[in-house]
């Protein structure tokens, strides 16, 4: 009897284990996806951003971004010319500063409204913050294709989001999320995020192109990484108000 119980338990573990080996749980997939995106210790990126409106008019912005961990970030705009030097510092606990070179002034900026878009892009402040989907959403696995997992993400209870639902496409081989769909409160598809050109850079997977499309506004933001340096050991001094206004 005892033997049998052990056998059954063993069997169960085996079966479960093998299932686990084949298909991780939705939650694990999501955790892995977060981890792969947030993997680098720090990043120094030169970005080119293209904003396209519904009339097809394009605006191009170039910027340099320094990021350390998931909560320290400094963005400096390099173009257009009259916005050159505008810099944006974001620190933990929603502390954000802006530097306007035309007035040589640093101001703390608050935004209690997380669904406002950042500087004319299609990313809300919330979208811009580090990828922490596993913390904020409950995931279920909808489908498993040849190379992708398709997850459905519903905000956890008590977590306020502008979206009622997300759909996430995650690569099976490296857990990199390649596509995200954001649904509004009426369950209409609102925004679409795609990562392209995902390549290995050192030990990390990096998407060198990403695009967010706001389907309601018919407006899109495309970001292309022109240069990226990882794990340079960026100093904390970079992420200070003092450094914020050091624009040449």
């Amino acid at each position: 009897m005892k033997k049998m119980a052990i056998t059954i338990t063993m069997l169960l573990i085996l079966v479960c284990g093998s299932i686990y080996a084949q298909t991780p749980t939705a939650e694990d997939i999501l955790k892995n996806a977060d981890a792969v995106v947030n993997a680098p210790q720090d990043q120094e990126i030169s970005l080119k951003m293209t904003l396209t409106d519904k009339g097809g008019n394009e605006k191009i912005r170039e910027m340099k971004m320094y990021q350390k961990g998931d909560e320290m970030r400094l963005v400096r705009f390099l173009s257009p010319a009259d916005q050159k030097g505008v810099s944006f510092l974001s620190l933990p606990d929603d502390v954000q500063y802006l530097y306007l070179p035309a007035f040589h002034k640093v101001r703390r900026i608050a935004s209690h409204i997380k669904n406002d878009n950042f500087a004319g892009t299609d990313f809300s402040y919330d979208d811009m913050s580090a990828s922490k989907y596993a913390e904020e959403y409950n995931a279920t696995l909808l489908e498993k294709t040849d190379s992708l997992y398709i997850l459905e993400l519903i905000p956890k209870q008590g977590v306020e989001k502008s979206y009622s639902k997300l759909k996430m496409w995650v690569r099976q081989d490296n857990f990199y999320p390649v596509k995200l769909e954001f649904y509004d409160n009426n369950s209409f598809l609102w925004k679409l995020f795609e990562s392209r050109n995902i390549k290995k850079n050192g030990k990390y997977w990096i998407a060198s192109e990403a695009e967010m499309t706001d389907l309601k506004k018919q407006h899109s933001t495309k970001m292309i990484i022109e240069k990226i340096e990882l794990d340079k050991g960026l100093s904390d001094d970079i992420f200070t108000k003092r450094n914020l206004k050091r624009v040449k």
Partner: protein
Amino acid sequence: MRKFAELVLKYRVTIIIGTIIITVFMAFQLRKLEISSDILKYLPQDDPNVVLFNEVGEKFGGNSLAMIAMETEDVFNPNTLKRINTITQKFKEMSEISYVTSLTDVIDIKKMEDGLEVGKLFDERHIPSEKDELEKIKNYTLSKEMYRGNIVSDDGTIAVVIARLNEDADRLVVGREMKEFVLSTEGNEKLYFAGIPFQMIYLTDVINSDVAKLLPIVLLLLIITLAISFRSKRGVILPLVTVIISTTWGLGLMSLFGIKLTVASDGIPILLLAIGSAYGIHLVNKYMEDIRKGDNKIEAIKDTISEVGVPIFLAGLTTSIGFLAFLVSNLTIIKEFGVFTAIGVLFAFIVAITFLPALLSFMPAPKIKAKKESLEPTLMNRFMTGLSRLILKRRIAILIIGFFIVAIGIFSLFKINREVNMVDYFKKDSEIRQAEDMMESKLGGSIPIQILVKGDLQEPAVLKEMIKLEKYLKNLPDVHSPQSIADLICEMNDVMNDSYCIPETREGVANLWFFLEGNEILPQLINSQNNEGLIQAKLGTVDTKKGRYIIDSIDDFISKNINSDILTIDLTETNSITEEINQERAENISNKIFYDAAHYGFEIKDRDALEKILHKYLTQDDQEIPTSNLTIKLVDYMNDEDSDLLIESSSLQNKVVKSLLKYVEKNEDYSEKGIVSNLKKVVPYSYYEDDPEMLDYAAISISTIIKNEIEWNKVNNLIKEITPLFSKDIQQNPDFKKNLIGDVWEINDTQIFLSNTKFNNLNKDEQNPTISLDLQQTGMPIIYKDIDNNIVSSQTYSLLFAIGLVFILLAIQFKSFIGGLISILPIILTVLFNFAIMWIFKIPLDAATVMIGSVAVGIGIDYTIHFNNRFHFEIGKKNSVENALETTLQTTGKGIIINAFSVMLGFLTLLLGSIVPMQRFGWLIALTMVVSATASLTFLPSLLLITHASFIGDLKHLALRRAINIKANIKQKVNNFKDKK
């Protein structure tokens, strides 16, 4: 005509069947007849103002504003805010709505302790419910000009949700959907629905219900009139059927052509019933007369057609011409009304002359009742005899009265008010009117004024001109809450630098712009290339005259005071600063102050003194260094842990300050480089040994601090100096003070903008590039003005056209120029009388009353024709003038009065309708009919008698006629005597 009668009888079966088929077909079309309440469709769509208005609508998310206002004790309570939020969210989801603005969804630029926030007034997901917090938001909201009197009333009792409808949205459908949703939300607030979409809904409903309500009444009146006149079923049914058929055709044809019923054309059915019935009546009347004479049925029909066919045709033709005259109007709705009424009248004539006799031919001849007519003269007969005597005796007096009316009429032509606003269509106590009145008194109105700005919107010069215009707009009566990108930039600058003005550099503007990028409000204010923008304001009056004044003032201001070709001068690079430039700058600042003062209820006691002070500051050579303030700021800087130059030792701080002050005092054009070398003298090397760039960055910060302090010092001194010039203490009004500081801040500018045309001498070899700017006014008031202009020209031209055509027609008929002239005079008198009445009773000229003149010509001319025909005929019988006149009055005169009375009744039913212009139209036309009949029965004969017009016959040899008459009488009496014998 007799041949025609035979043809009608020959093909009577075909005619009847054909008429029935056409009628059934047209009746089916009727179901598709739509109602259009779009005021824009009044104008031809290629009208330049309409084109511009539509263009602006397409570019900036639509021209139609729908406003839902909620009234309660205090709108800053959780329930009302939640209701506003629910409605706002729902509207935002509707694809036909491009933008929604309300308390719970509006851009908010907020100054904070050490920073700023660009966000929204409320977080839509967290509407607070604690009293304290709500009270705080309430105070904040009501303190901001951007919100106060705009999305919430000054007293906080009314909040409004403003939705901008897409240019291609069906405003009726969307408006109804919006209204339905709002009514489905819970709450105790009193609701108001204002703005064009709701006005359109209301108008459409009213037109619908009016037509449904009035048609049966008019039909009933017609039946009663017919029954009294003919006292036979046939006499009622035949004219009634005729007119119903022709009206069906007329409206069916409208529907077939896709023409919609409008405020003007909704009167067509009633008009056609009133006018068209006359033709059937004439025919049946004549037929009865012929039967009475002893004709058989077929002969009677032939006689009837051949004898009255021509007069009916003539009457129909002149009436049609009266309506066709509206073709010269530029207003689409009036054109349509004219054409389709004319066609309807023509149909009435055709049906009366074909279908009616064909039908009649199948009916048995009526039994001739014994003539009950006694020889006793009726009241009418006695009245007519009296009238005839009066005319003979007092013809000169009548003529004088007539010309007196003409004189008053001509005088009143210049006094009549005009009204084109849709709101005026509704009764004062109607729901929509109340909503609009409330909007007008509490929230600045619902009519948008728009000014399209074409120019580089990131260029300070362009933005400054926009602000100048907006300041002017605010100071105009009835113009409220102007808004544009320029305001937002000023607002941002205020938050960032405490000065509510446009920064002087392009970089400054672009930096502030950064905060606004992607904000929902931007597409309503600028296009995506930033080269076209909109200044929007609200017009708080529905008075056409006031609106016109405002539009003209704005246009005038734009052409005189806005630079379209702007020259930029950098004062630091130019030596040619002339006195002229300083004068110009002082004047420019003083103008802005003047408009601000006027807007905030301040008076400038001495404008010359103000300009003198400004001038003094502009030409000041040596700058004052505010030593104590500057010291505080520099010490603060060195104490700040985030600063480049952190110095803890106060003695070192003192040393640094002293050295810097000395340097600045000596060198007016202090530089960063100079500051660095000064710092190097006092700051020990150990401070910047690890960070070689430290002093360079510190110099940038210090230089900014110095510049800022000097500028503020200057502005504060200036404000202090001009404060006594105002009638009230400027501290009392923070909004005025904020604007005032913004106005005078310009004295610090080193980049100045001048008119290239005026200061061309500074740009002789055109080395300085100029900035072009083009401002065009558009918006609803311009459309109203356009309609107003067109109403006046419609009135003038259609009336002249109608009178001219009728005159030609009459002259041809009487084969006499004088004949035409005399016949047209009673009509002119009638038309002028109508204007006199409009002036006396303050009835405005609007889309409906504008048509009275031409309608009066078309219908009234029948009376003149009938009178002249009969009088001519009686004179031709060699009767005496007295007899001829009396007989004419007894026969035709009676007919005219009966006809005028029945048409009048028909039009009076319009009084029961709900559209104010149609009511006015109704009673004025009714009055016109009476006047027209009276004029053709009194003024016309008096005129004929005095002028001895030869086209009527030989009126001159009265004595001879009288002799002949007496002779004839004697002869008759002798004969009678003989007979008796």
